[in-house]
């Protein structure tokens, strides 16, 4: 193991390490801790210049209550949810199929198609912006969740295909050959042999895509504009102009907006990290 396990070091080194850990963490999360502290202060603290002292009262419930009941925040959160979930389902479904086709079959153009998906996944969003917006406007899907979902599904298919194809490549190929010898139809091989083995990949991709899409901002402002369809990342600017200079409420608002992917991460940590670091080890 590298570096040398701390247990093999001197007692002093161990104590230093143990006390540095929390300190380093606090430093690392300092900007966030500041926001968390802001979000429980009353507004009067800000007018009195009491930014970093003891809060004059703990207004957690009042602040978060106003975010949830006196603003459009719940609507934006729901929009985010209704955009994110269909995208996850769509992109994962499409890429299970493309990954299966590219991972199992040998045909001319296989690598070419695979590399097209990878390359497309890396392009800057701006090169797609004008035509995609135009297409969305022309199909009457501008400022709708559907318009945003369709684009997200298409774009995420690139990354998901990369992921799924490499995962399927690592499966034992003998299983598929054995099924073929038995005379199992190809689509049944997909459904009954490969798909059950892909469960961990599906779980990992789902949490990753959930986070990516929930956190998307660029396409939200390009393809939507009002509280009807805007997800929370875009809605939060409107929220902030509603409560301008009320740092306690703005802080509470951005914490509320951040919570779903954070919960998702902590609940599905193993899958999340497995997905993110696929390929980091050979």
């Amino acid at each position, binding site marked *: 193991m590298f570096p040398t396990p701390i247990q093999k070091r001197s007692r002093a080194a161990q104590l230093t390490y143990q006390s540095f*850990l929390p300190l380093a963490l606090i430093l690392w999360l300092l900007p966030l801790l500041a926001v968390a502290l802001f979000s429980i202060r009353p507004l009067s603290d800000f007018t009195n210049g009491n930014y970093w002292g003891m809060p004059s009262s703990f207004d957690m419930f009042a602040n978060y209550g106003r975010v949830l009941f006196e603003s459009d925040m719940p609507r934006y959160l729901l929009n985010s949810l209704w955009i994110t979930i269909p995208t996850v389902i769509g992109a994962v479904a499409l890429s299970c199929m493309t990954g299966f086709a*590219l991972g199992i079959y040998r045909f001319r153009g296989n690598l070419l198609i695979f590399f097209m998906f990878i390359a497309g996944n890396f392009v800057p969003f701006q090169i797609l912006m004008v035509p995609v917006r135009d297409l969305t406007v022309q199909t009457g899907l501008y400022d709708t969740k559907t318009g945003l979902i369709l684009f997200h599904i298409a774009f995420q298919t690139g990354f998901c295909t990369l992921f799924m194809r490499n995962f399927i490549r690592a499966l034992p190929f003998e299983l598929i050959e054995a099924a073929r010898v038995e005379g199992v139809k190809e689509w049944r091989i997909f459904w009954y042999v490969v798909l059950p083995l892909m469960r961990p990949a599906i779980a990992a991709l789902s949490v990753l895509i959930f986070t990516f899409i929930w956190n998307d901002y660029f396409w939200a402002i390009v393809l939507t504009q009002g509280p009807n369809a805007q997800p929370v990342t875009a809605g939060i600017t409107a929220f902030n102009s509603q409560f301008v200079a009320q740092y306690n409420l703005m802080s509470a608002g951005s914490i509320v907006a951040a919570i779903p992917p954070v919960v998702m991460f902590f609940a599905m940590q193993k899958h999340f990290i497995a997905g993110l670091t696929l390929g980091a080890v050979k």
Partner: protein
Amino acid sequence: MNAAVHNQTWLQRNKMTVTPILFLIPGILFFTIYVISPIFQSFNISLYEWDGLGDATYIGLGNYQELIHDRSFNMSLWNNVKWLVLYLLAIPGGLAIALFLNQTVPGIRLYKSLFFFPFVLSQVVVGLVFSWFYLPRVGLLNAVLGYLGLGSINVLGDPALATYGVIAAGLWPQTAYCMILYLTGLNAVDPEQIEAGRLDGAKGWRMLWHIVLPQLRPATFIAFVVTIIGALRSFDLISIMTNGGPFGSTRVLSFLMFEKALGEYGFRMGYGSAIAVVLFLIMLVFIGYFLWSMWRDERDARR
């Protein structure tokens, strides 16, 4: 041809070709409509003067000629270089934190998750958090500086500092990302090689450089890919933290493109597309290199 094959239908005989095609059609269709063909359309639009609504006028390379003399374009390009170079700090930074956390003490798993956690936040939230952190009067940064007797700075209000302030905010989640890549990589480092190195008297830096880092190459490669792509994609943080200001000093190409095509100063789709094409070509150099290395791995894997 034997009788068994003869009795099969065309579909059965060609199932190894037909099946992958059928499985690929939906994915390719979506991807072509929303990703591949827009790239070519953007190239085409960049040759027109177009407000997005009325008729487009063909002006050849006019937009590109205008770009060369556009001061905001040059400034944005230069900022992109700053992003690209400074963003790479996330890689050694992530490695350092990964080495720091690669221990087995009680609670270390929670520490790892909490160190990684900024990556899960949306860039919008990161941007807001950091712009409040930098605030001249209210922000924590200036509270700390004041406490240390160092005076105060208005990071995002100063054209000389603002871009660095935004990049620092971007480095926060990006370093966390690189850290998790390296933590996973370190897990897979071969303990026997480490022991062999120790017996040979390798320690500290020498061990890291000669024995550990070579084994971390796959992690380093991915860290490079995601960091470079992330640097060139930077948009959200700029939009949230400075909106390109002060005096346009924090714009990068992606932001400038958005501003020209959909911003307050009118809809110049053609000009915006020309900027997007330039950004795309820069990115293409890196994409080409990434694909080339992946292709090499594929080829080696087949042998």
